């Protein structure tokens, strides 16, 4: 297989294109500060995107990720505020645990109560956002409530060259991406996810535990969103009940879609998602550097999602033609 035939190659090409155009129009795009903001923008998106990609591969969708992120981040923030000396690792565990529970609720509703994914997660999107306000009483978690070690995830990193820092956040996200790629490619549970997405009925008849696979993707997505909630607290230094993760689902879906994940299910790769996240980050920073207002952001996500849908539809048609011929 030639490298140019890979879906990821197109994403990479787009990424290079966006960066080149932005750098020519405005050389400041290549300064360490711009590159750092892309590198800090991507990690949370990668972490949540990994889960969302698995969900979309099974022909589902999870629009509650932003609310799960916010609720986990808020609960961990409250935990840190009430237990100032708490180990950060325990906080992470709590965040992931909360996210896993929330995701499991989605998974149970979809798998066993047979609620369509969009309805279940649209409901929990609202319900979890409401819960954030209920547990926090509408109060924000401030920077001085959070442990210093958590800030270091954003400020410090394993590698720093010429002012460009690979933060711990990014290192964690990439490590997770590596683990997820292994899980999806090499384990039976991972292959089951693709089997379910390619042809649910055939997968069931073949003896694939389809219910388990479906439940698992939502639970994993919840756990990852929970982790992203802790990362959010590190990245921004505060957790606000109204804004934490608000509308994040659209960003994540845009990144996953542009990363070459087949919108109608059955195929998608971690490499594509990671590239898609960097691409979206590059577009965002490029717009900011070029002086285009932040109010254009939502439009960009919308265009990106629709573009991915159209590419998807077009490739499906050529594939069908080729199969018939």
């Amino acid at each position, binding site marked *: 297989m030639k490298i140019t035939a890979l879906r990821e190659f197109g994403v990479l090409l787009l990424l290079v294109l966006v960066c080149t155009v932005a750098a020519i129009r405005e050389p400041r795009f290549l300064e360490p500060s711009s590159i750092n903001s892309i590198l800090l923008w991507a990690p949370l998106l990668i972490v949540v995107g990994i889960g969302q990609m698995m969900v979309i591969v099974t*022909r589902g*969708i999870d*629009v509650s990720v932003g609310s799960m992120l916010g609720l986990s981040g808020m609960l961990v923030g409250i935990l840190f505020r009430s237990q100032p000396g708490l180990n950060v690792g325990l906080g992470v565990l709590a965040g992931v645990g909360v996210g896993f529970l929330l995701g499991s609720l989605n998974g149970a*509703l979809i798998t066993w*109560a*047979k*609620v*369509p*994914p*969009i*309805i*279940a997660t*649209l*409901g*929990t*999107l*609202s*319900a*979890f*956002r*409401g*819960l*954030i*306000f*209920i547990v926090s009483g*509408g109060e924000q978690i401030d920077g001085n409530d959070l442990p210093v070690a958590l800030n270091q995830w954003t400020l410090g990193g394993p590698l720093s060259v010429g002012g460009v820092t690979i933060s711990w956040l990014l290192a964690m996200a990439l490590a997770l991406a590596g683990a997820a790629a292994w899980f999806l490619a090499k384990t039976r549970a991972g292959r089951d996810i693709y089997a379910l997405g390619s042809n649910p009925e055939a997968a069931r008849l073949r003896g694939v535990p389809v219910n388990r696979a479906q439940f698992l993707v939502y639970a994993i997505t919840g756990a990852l969103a929970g982790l992203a909630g802790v990362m959010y607290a590190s990245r921004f230094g505060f957790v606000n*009940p*109204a804004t934490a993760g608000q509308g994040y689902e*659209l960003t994540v*879906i*845009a990144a996953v879609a542009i990363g070459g994940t087949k*919108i*109608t299910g059955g195929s998608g790769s971690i490499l594509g998602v990671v590239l898609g996240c960097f691409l979206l980050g590059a577009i965002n920073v490029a717009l900011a550097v070029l002086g285009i*207002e932040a*109010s*254009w*952001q*939502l*439009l*960009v*996500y*919308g*265009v990106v*999602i*629709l573009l991915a*849908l*159209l590419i*998807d*539809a077009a490739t*499906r048609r050529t594939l069908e033609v080729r199969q018939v011929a």
Partner: protein
Amino acid sequence: MPRPGVRSRCGRLHKHRELIPAVLVVVAFIVGSMQSRFFLDSRYLLDSSTLYAEAGLLALGMTLVIISGNIDLSVASTLALVAVVSANLLDAGWGLPAVVVAALALGALLGCINGCLVAYAGIPSFMVTVGTLALYRGVAQAMLGAESVKMPSELIGIDMKYVPGTVVPVSLAGLIVIATVCGLVLNRSVLGHWVRAVGTNEKASFYSGVPTAGVKVAVFAIAGMLAGLAALHIDSRLGVARFDHARGLEVDVITAVVLGGTSIFGGKGSVLGTMLALLLIALIRTGMGVANVKAEYQLAVIGSLLVITVVATNLGERLASRGRVKMRTQK
């Protein structure tokens, strides 16, 4: 000896799905009136109905879309975009009739885009409309940013106007008329028959000559046009156009439709049920408002209501179908 009585009663309940929201409305009235005296003040109730006129218009379109086996998450974004565009047109000196036509046409066009992507590109409707949810509101935001456009003062306050000689707000009367038309379209027209057919079994209806693609485009276009009408209403009610009008309203709208007995899997549903469920949601929201429950908490209640409704319906359906199977095997 099984008890077919219970089961068949379950089955019969399914043929009259409007009964559930109707009963709940009565319960809500009783509970509400025990909580607060305002609740049974008919003037107060009639006046607050104007707050739900937009949700009502969106819910009528959504009923058709969901019966056809699809979903439209972009309705609130369509509303926002049309609201911004029509306020800009008024600002540029267009006359009211021209703006009304433009708003309805733009709404229908945005709906058509959804419908074409679903019908001809073969992409699931939830994916298409998640995309256009971002796109349409994104265009509105790019046009206005955080600014707002004021409406001409003579066009403000449609919600304060009454049908001459009565205490019924024009908004409510209009909604009832449009709901009646939608009900007639659904139950008495060929299009309505096709919509149900497509929602029940798309392949079978295609092979029996139903223009399935056209039907899908039509339901999305109707939903878009009703969103355009709702946009004009919200502009007039609030007096300004902003990009974040009706943000998140799709949750209330979809909840109203499924609570009204429309099957989320398509094929079954009624306009009357949707309107009753909307009344129920309005009562719950008003009740929570009277009891000083914050808007964010109300969000949690509506979201849970959506999920619980679908879970309960699925459970009821499973019980009913099991009953049917048992009765058949007894013979």
